[in-house]
């Protein structure tokens, strides 16, 4: 495919950006699937969008504000109840700086 939209290197790069480890078998399956989806998206080249503003939200709301008041929230035990790992009332997060 000379005009391919996405190479194996691109796929690996995108997967890294998205923080997803792909199994080797997935890479082989996904590459042609993504290629065909991306080719299909070329249909948008037919559209004339000169002087058209983009739409990012469909209703006309502006900022929605509320008063800055303290309301009930979870206690510490509840907030931590779904975490796979906790310690001393904290979420356990993998180290971000190497020793």
């Amino acid at each position, binding site marked *: 495919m000379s005009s391919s939209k996405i190479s194996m290197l691109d796929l690996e790069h995108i997967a890294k950006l998205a923080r997803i*480890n792909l199994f080797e078998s997935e890479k082989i399956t996904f590459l042609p699937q993504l290629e065909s989806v991306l080719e299909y998206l070329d249909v948008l080249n037919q559209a004339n969008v000169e002087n058209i503003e983009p739409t990012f939200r469909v209703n006309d709301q502006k900022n929605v504000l509320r008063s800055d008041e303290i309301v009930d929230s979870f206690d510490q035990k509840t907030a931590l109840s779904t975490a796979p790992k906790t310690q001393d009332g904290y979420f356990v997060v993998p180290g971000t700086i190497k020793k």
Partner: protein
Amino acid sequence: MDLKNLTISQIQELLFSKKVSVVDIVNFYLERIKKLDPQIKAFITITEKEALIQAKNLDDKIKKGDKVGKLAGAVMAVKDIFLTKNIQTTASSQVLKDYLPQYSSTIYQRLIDQDAIIIGKTNTDPFAFGGSTENSGFFTTKNPWNLSKVPGGSSGGSAAAVAADLCQFALGTDTGGSIRLPASLCNISGLKPTYGLNSRYGITAMASSFDCPGVFAKNVEDLALLTQFTAGVDPKDATTIDNPVPNYSELLDKVNLKGLKIGLPKEYFTDPINTEVKTKVLEATKFFESKGATLVDISLPSTKLGIAVYYILVPSEISANMARYDGIRFGRNTDNNPDITSYYMNTRGQYMEAEVKRRILIGTYALSSGYYDAYYTKASKVRTLIKNEFINALKKVDVILAPVSPTTAWDIGAKVNDPLQMYLVDAFTVCTNVAGVPSVALPCGFDNQNLPIGFQLIGNFFEESKILSIAHQYQQFTDYHLQTPNL
């Protein structure tokens, strides 16, 4: 007493005339689930204990003469992407297996507050990514009309549960057709409301500028009743609109079919539509004509770009929303990673289903450096075109009538290896989500294999009462929605 195929008002009549108790009603559905769900596989979790406790409390209230909610006696199934406090919520993904939320989604809670009873959590494509339930991290739901066919998706478990009479109504979400498509393939009614009518709070986010939670029911009358309670502003979802909620039930007879202008968009009656679907949907238009409505040929020329716009913008929003799944505050994680990047990559790589990964990858690609303008910006501009075409068409006609699915239910497995073919099943549903306008789907016949066919009525922003009224009047004169599968 036989409680088969009853609507909410019918079951409430039996309840309030003391012919049945709430426990009887719940047991009726639990028995059906035990008998039929091993084949249909609509449910991931059956909430037998919770349902019976709720039912008993409600019976006690009724016995004491206490005031009960407007949905007393109504039994619901809930798509498993709605958070339900202390009830497992998996989003049909291995990522959230065993997850017990600490809070509930707003619209589920609003229904519970009206004394609706939850009977279980239903299967979907993972995080609602799909059109058939085949992407589910657990199993595929079967179409109650033919167990070798898909129920449609992503809310396929909810649709199958209502169609098989395993509950009275169900909650679903429609980001690109995920309520209307399965409703149509399973012969039930479903409402995709205007974006911002129903709160998205407490529902796993797919594409935040598209997601529309809504209801499935056995008829339009029940959709109106339920939407009365789901709709309305929610401080916890800043995109909900602070409009007064109309009394949808009282407005069901309001629209006069005589003189009604119904637009038929030519782009929805052409390829890829199947001939039998087209014939049946056109028969529905003849019904309205016979009641004095005028059929008007219209054009929504950008319809052919809908899927492309959708599959750029939705995966883009998905890639941002799914970044939260890191297995730290909730969800499953992995051990023995040398550094934090490996931790993220392995955790997400281990548990996300293939379609979840594909959509994140497409979105990451579309948003990445060098491609952003060609994909995201371009698609956002075409979104404007699609929205304007609906607004302009709805100045000329009162309502738009179109098919929901180009075909009837297809064989399980037929499209699973070709994501693009699976994406194209939403050809006639995605544009309403791109634009944000409401649409109600309802049954209008069967093909030669006795598989259901449906049509949709699309209105302008916040015109739910209008489209529900037109749909309800259709059901007063037809009996397609009363047909049930042989199980």
